[in-house]
C-alpha cells in the first residue's frame, strides 16, 4: 500500500480561497480533519475523490504513492468513500449491493462465494437476498463498510461516518472501521465535527479555521 499525498492543495470558491493543505497520510494512518461547517472539509473530500463541483477551482496534486490521481476520472482513482448515511442502493438486494463494487473477475459462483464470505464476516450470513430497507441501522452501516472494502480501495475517505448513529452503535462502528482500515493498511482521511471520533481514530488531527 502507498501513502495518500496531498501536495499543495488549494481550493477556492469563485476566486476567494477556501482551504489549503499539504500533507501525506501513511498506509494504515487515520488523519482527522476538524473544523466548523462551511470551511470546505467535504469539498476537500470531493476534490480527492474526483467530484469537485465546477463552481470551485483547485490547484495542487493528489497522489497515491507515485500514481497521480489529479486528472483521473473518479472511477479510476480507487478511493473508497463512506458517508454519514449508509446509502445502500434501494433497488438492489444486500448481496448485489456488495457485488456492485467488486471487480468483474471470476465466475458468478466465485463472486457469490465472496459475497457470502463478506456477509459472514460482518455477522450477516444468509442476508444476500434481503431488501436493504429491512435491515437495522447498524446492519446497514456494516454492509456499507463491507461494500467499500470489497471494491479494494487504495485509500479511504470518511465523511462524518458516525454522526447519524446512536451512542452504542457509534462506538461499535468506530472500532470496526478503524480496525479494518488498519488491517488493510489504507491511508484514511476522516472529516468530522465530533472530537470523540478524532480521539478514537488516535492519529493526527488537523484543525481547519475560517
Amino acid at each position, binding site marked *: 500500500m502507498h501513502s495518500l499525498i496531498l501536495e499543495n492543495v488549494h481550493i477556492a470558491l469563485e476566486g476567494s480561497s477556501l482551504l489549503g493543505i499539504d500533507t501525506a497520510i501513511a498506509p494504515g494512518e487515520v488523519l482527522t480533519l476538524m473544523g466548523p461547517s462551511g470551511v470546505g472539509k467535504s469539498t476537500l473530500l*470531493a476534490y480527492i*475523490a*474526483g*467530484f469537485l*463541483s*465546477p463552481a470551485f477551482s483547485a490547484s495542487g496534486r493528489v497522489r497515491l504513492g507515485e500514481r497521480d490521481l489529479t486528472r483521473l*476520472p*473518479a*472511477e*479510476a*482513482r*480507487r*478511493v*473508497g*468513500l463512506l*458517508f454519514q*448515511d449508509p*446509502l*445502500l*442502493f*434501494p*433497488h*438492489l*438486494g444486500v448481496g448485489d449491493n456488495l457485488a*456492485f*463494487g467488486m*471487480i468483474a473477475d471470476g465466475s458468478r459462483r466465485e463472486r457469490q462465494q465472496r459475497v457470502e464470505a463478506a456477509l459472514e464476516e460482518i455477522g450477516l450470513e444468509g442476508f444476500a437476498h434481503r*431488501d*436493504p*430497507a*429491512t435491515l437495522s441501522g447498524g446492519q446497514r452501516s456494516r454492509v456499507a463498510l463491507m*461494500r*467499500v472494502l470489497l*471494491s479494494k*480501495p487504495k485509500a479511504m475517505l470518511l465523511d462524518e461516518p458516525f454522526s447519524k448513529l446512536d451512542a452504542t452503535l457509534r462506538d461499535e462502528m468506530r472500532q470496526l472501521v478503524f480496525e479494518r482500515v488498519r488491517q488493510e493498511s489504507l491511508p484514511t482521511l476522516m472529516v468530522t465535527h465530533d472530537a470523540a471520533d478524532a480521539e478514537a481514530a488516535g492519529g493526527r488531527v488537523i484543525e481547519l479555521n475560517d
Partner: protein
Amino acid sequence: MPSSYALGVRLAPWLTITLLSLPVASGLAGVIAPAFGFLPALGGDSLTLTHWQALLDRPGLGRMVQLSYVTGLVSAGASLAIVMLFLGAFMHTRVFTAVRRLLSPLLAVPHAAAAIGLAFLLAPSGLLSRALSPGLTDWQHPPDILFPGDPFGLAMIAGLVLKEVPFLLLMSLAALPQCRASERLRMARALGYGPLSAFLKVVVPGLYPLLRLPVYAVIAFASSTVEVALILGPTTPPPLAVAVLRWLNDPDLSMRFMASAGALLQLGVTLAALATWWLIEVLVRRLTRRWLSNGRRHNGDAVLGGIAFGAVSLSLLLILGSLVGLMLWSLAAYWPFPEALPQPLTLRNWTRAAASMGDPLTQAAVIGIVATLLSLALVVGALEAETLHQRPTRPWAQLILYLPLLVPSVAFLFGLVLMQIQAGVPPGITAVIFGHAIFVLPYVFLSLGESYRRLDPRWAHLARSLGASPARVFWRVRLPMLSVPLMTAAAVGFAVSIGQYLPTLLLGAGRVSTITTEAVSLASGGDRRLTAVYALLQLAMPALGFALALGLPRLLFRRRSGLLTSV
C-alpha cells in the same frame, strides 16, 4: 453501451431543443409567405394583401377574435383564482391531501373527453336537467336553451377551467417547496395572519413568478383551442381557431391562403391576450403593494375560504357528474327525456362500437407509445447531460420547453402542413408521431425534471468511487432508482398524446384516425351513445397507462421497499 451513452448525452440536449423549437419556428415561417400570397404549389407566386382583405371581409371576424381573446383571459383568470384560493384555504389540511391524490388522474383526462362529458351533463336534455325534471322544473321536453354552444362561450370557458385547474394545481405543487411556501406561511401565521391572508400576502408573491409560464400556457391554449371549442363553443361564429381549421380544410384549395392569414391572426390574438395578462400583472403588483404591508391580518378569510371550497367541490361534482353521464349514455338503449335513468341498460352500444374501434385504438396506442418513448429518451438524455456537467438550467431553456405550449398550435401546425406539401412528404403516422412528440416532450420534462435533479448526488459519487463508469452509474444506479418517476412521466406523456387532436388531424391529413379524432367528430354528430363510448375509451387509455405506471414498479421491485418510498 458506454459509447451509445456518451453519444446520447452529447446529442440529447440539442435534439431536445431542435424538436421543441424547429417545428414551431419553421411552422410559423411556413404560414407567413402563404398569408401574403406566396405558395407556388398552389399557384401563388406574387406577394399580395388580397388574402388579408378577404379575411377582414369575413362576416363575424370581429366576434371570432373577441371570443378567442376573452376565452383565453377569462378561463386563465378563473382557473388561477380557484387554484390560489384553494391552496390558501386548504394547504396543510386533509382536504388538500385528498385532492392531491386525484390530481394526476384528473390531469390525464383528455380535453375532448372532459368537454364531451360536460356537454352531456349540462345540455338541456343532459343528465342534470333529467335528474331535476319533471319534479323540480316541470319540464316535459328539453328546454330551448342554447347550451353548450352559447354565444358567449360560457360552456367552453367552463370546460377549459375544469381542465386547467388540475394543471395549475399540479404546477403549484412543484413550485410550492421551491419558494419555501410552508416556512413563509408558518411565519405569517405566527405573526397572527389568518390562513388565507397569510397565503395571499406572503406566499403568492413568491409563488406566482414560478407559475407564470404555466399560466401563459393556459392562456395560449384557451385562446386557440380547437377541440374544446368544437364540442362546447358557439358555432355562428365560432372562435377564430375553429374558423381557421375550417378554412384550411376547405375543399377549395385557394382558401388556404386566407387560412394562413387567419393562422397569423390567431397568433396575434394569443399574443394580445398574453400582453393583456402581462399588463394586468403589472397593475395588480402596483395596486397591491400597499395592501401587502397594511398589517390587516384577516381579509374575509372565512368567506373566501368558503368560495374556494365551493369552487373546488363544484369542479369535482361536475367531473363526477360528467363521468356518470358518459357511462349512462354508453349503456343506454331507449332514454326518453325526463327519465333520470335509461331503461333497459344494454351493452349494444359497446358491441356496435367494437366493430370500428380497433383501428383508432391501435393507432392511438402506437402513436402514444412511440411519441412517449421518443420524448422520454430525449428528456432523460438532456437531464443526464445536465447532471453530468453539473450545469444549472438556463432561463432560456425553460422558455424553449414552453415554446410549443405558448404558440397557438393551429398556427404553427398549419405551417408545417404547408411545408409538408411543398416538400412532397407524404402525410401519415410518422409525421403524426413527431407532431405528438412536440407536445408530449414538455410535459414529460416537467414531470421528470424535479425528481431527476433532486436525486442525491452522493449516490452517483458512491457508485463512481466503487469503480463504476458514468455510463454504468446511469444504467445501473440512476435509471433504476428513478423507475417510479420515470414510469409516471411516461404515463403523463402517453396521456398527453392520447388527448392530441389537432396534430393528428393536420399532420395525418385525415388519414390517421385515433380515438380522440373519432370522439371529436362523433361529438359534432348526433349519436350520443356512440360518442359516450368513444369518450370513455379516451378516458380508459390514459387510465390504463397510469395503472401500469403505478403497478409495474411495485411488481418489479416488490421486495425493494426502500425504492418505492424514499425516491
